């Protein structure tokens, strides 16, 4: 098969356009909706807890439940468009981390009974461990999200406890910002 340089240039241009269109579509399936959703929920929870964690305990639970339901809905809708085989080994690792973070370790440390902030920190650190493992496992941005939010949680909890909820607000804003980055610039 022989073609002219003009035809080759035209074909390469077509390839670039198709790739750019598909990349944009793929980027819309790389988790930005989850980051926006949970970033907004973190911001709301941090603000409410900053005011009074015990007064807004029910609101916190409702926000979490709404987030979980919305996450399932997004996952189902987007999974029908672009999906891949479920990595059962990774699902097993996540289950083990959550079991230890919420079940086994608190039996020894009693972290969910100490204070609301401590329980919250342990809970979020457990999820950030999932992010870090997922980031390494799939070579994705989850890794630096996990590391950065972990640093914010530790800084707020250990160094500036009076500003703990402010740091959680910052973590929520960081998730929202990462969502914009993923939607527009991620590979």
């Amino acid at each position, binding site marked *: 098969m022989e073609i002219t340089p003009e035809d080759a240039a035209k074909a*390469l241009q077509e390839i670039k356009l198709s790739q750019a269109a598909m990349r944009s579509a793929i980027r819309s399936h790389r988790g930005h909706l989850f980051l926006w959703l949970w970033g907004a929920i973190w911001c709301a929870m941090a603000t409410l807890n900053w005011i009074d964690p015990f007064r807004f305990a029910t609101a916190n639970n409702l926000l979490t439940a709404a987030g979980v339901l919305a996450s399932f809905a997004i996952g189902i809708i987007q999974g029908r468009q*672009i999906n891949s085989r479920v990595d059962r080994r990774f699902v097993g690792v996540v289950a083990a981390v959550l079991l230890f973070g919420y079940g086994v370790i608190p039996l020894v440390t009693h972290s969910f009974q100490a204070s609301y902030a401590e329980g919250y920190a342990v809970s979020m650190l457990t999820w950030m461990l999932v992010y870090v493992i997922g980031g390494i496992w799939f070579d994705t941005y989850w890794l630096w999200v996990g590391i950065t939010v972990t640093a914010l949680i530790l800084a707020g909890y250990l160094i500036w406890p009076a500003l703990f909820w402010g740091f959680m607000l910052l973590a929520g804003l960081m998730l929202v910002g990462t969502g914009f980055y993923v939607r527009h610039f991620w590979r």
Partner: protein
Amino acid sequence: MEALDATIHQPARLQIMSALTQLDQDERVDFTFLKDRLALTDGNLGAHLTTLEGRGYIAVDKQFVGRRPKTYVKATAAGRHAFASHVAALNAILSPK
């Protein structure tokens, strides 16, 4: 030197392969979603997918989600290799060594 692939070079198939090779290795895309992205008709996309599948460049997976049939498409390793070779051949025409 890489050779041009006549199967891939057809404009619609070039579009399809360009799009599918952007997905990760294990990822697959829904037929309707792909059709909308590429602005092709059902029949047109279906016919080209059959040609590409016949060459082993893509894998087509048909399944039911609830009661609705869904068709998923992904580029195979052979398809990715053939597409990369085709792009290399196009580049070679523009800047021969």
